[in-house]
């Protein structure tokens, strides 16, 4: 099992580390840390280290039949810079099919340090 220790960092930021040759990105979501292997499920793009962050755009059909697009509260999305595949940052799930997930890594907070394991 590969493991690396890094200092904690501020909410909203991310750090990418090397775990025995595998690039893993750690995100501080404010209330917790999450980490995923930095490899898009599509063509292997650097979705985590280079991906752009977006609110979760969704849509609803109103009672009058109109379609209303809106940003879902609390939704955090990362999009791969290569082709735009979007993932739920909290879960790593692909938005087009939530059964498809970024490979997660384990993050443990230990005082001022984070232990990242794969």
């Amino acid at each position, binding site marked *: 099992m590969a493991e690396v220790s890094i200092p904690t960092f501020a909410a909203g930021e991310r750090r990418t580390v090397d775990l025995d040759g595998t690039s893993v990105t750690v995100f501080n979501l404010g209330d917790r840390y999450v980490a995923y292997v930095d490899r898009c499920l*599509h*063509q*292997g793009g650097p979705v985590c280290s*280079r991906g*752009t962050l*977006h*609110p979760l*755009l969704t849509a609803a059909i109103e009672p009058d039949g109109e379609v209303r*697009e*809106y*940003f879902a509260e609390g939704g955090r999305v990362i*999009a*791969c*810079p*290569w*082709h*735009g595949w*979007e993932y739920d940052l909290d879960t790593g799930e692909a938005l087009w099919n939530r059964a498809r997930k970024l490979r997660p890594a384990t993050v443990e907070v230990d005082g001022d340090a984070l232990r990242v394991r794969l």
Partner: protein
Amino acid sequence: MTTIVDVDAHYLEDHKVLASYLPEPLRTRISRTAPGRLLPGSTGDRGVSGRIVRPDIHYPQEPTPPEEIPEIMKFLGVDISVQLPNRMLALSTTSQRDVAVGLAEGYALYMADRVMDPKNGIYSMIIAPVQAPRKAAEIIHKHAGNPGFAAVCLITAGAEPPLGDPFYDPIYQAAQDVELPIVYHSAGSGIDDFVIKGFQRFIETHTLGFVLFNMATIVSMIVQGIPERFPRVKFAFQEAGLFYIPMLMFRLDAEFRKRRAEAPLLKRLPSEYMLDFFYGTQPLEEPPKIDYLADVFKMIDGPNTLTFSTDYPHWDFDMPSVITDLPFLNDGEKAQVLGGNAMRFFRFEGR
């Protein structure tokens, strides 16, 4: 004192400032749109409101410096690159003959002077202004001797009449005379500019446009007998994926069996001509079962007709892994698709 009123002056707005006055989610959508594409000529925001970005290169914010091409080739893992100037993809849509001819001639000079470097694998194509076939033929003859020009390119989107029309004969004759193949390059996310108006999203126009214009071109040039009339020219079709190819092969065959009298020049089934053509792989479809893709490869003789292309840095580019990862091709077939077929088509060997 005279008061002077200027009733027409122009202010170039900062679209990000403008965005702050808009309701959500339009505010975010516009604020993350690439500069210059606030209200594009089509429904096109290729970057999907900032999701797809190219932070390591100049595109799309700034022009590509020629010295960036080798770096891009290294990133993509390609050894030979046929570069087609980005802005020329709209060339066929203008009705201004002098502008089209001037741009085509200027681009040929520009690409030869600044961009092409065949010794290091960087090639381009002579772009023919379809609006003025005789002028196009002159441009082809003038530049064909430059080893950096690997083909004559016709931009299919917007070409009227369709590209099998005898109107274009001087272009085909010139390509045959100088022994260069013809690449039909699709475009057409602007399908809503000149075919059906009213689409709302880029995903709609882009899904349809590229396929439509390649299909229109194939139907026109086969039924009008271009392969019979210019038998020494090889033809390739770019940037519409694969699945439209078998559909068109078998649909056109069925029509031909019933309506052969409308295409008496043809000596073979349309699908047989189509199997003589080459097709760029990008954007390779991603069906839920790999068997579906394998079946299409079989139907179109993919190991011998397909030529890998990235389309980089465009938003839907493909890496070579889309071919190297295919489980149903052997190593030799992968090598053919990744490079061998293109070497044969463009005749890079021996140039």
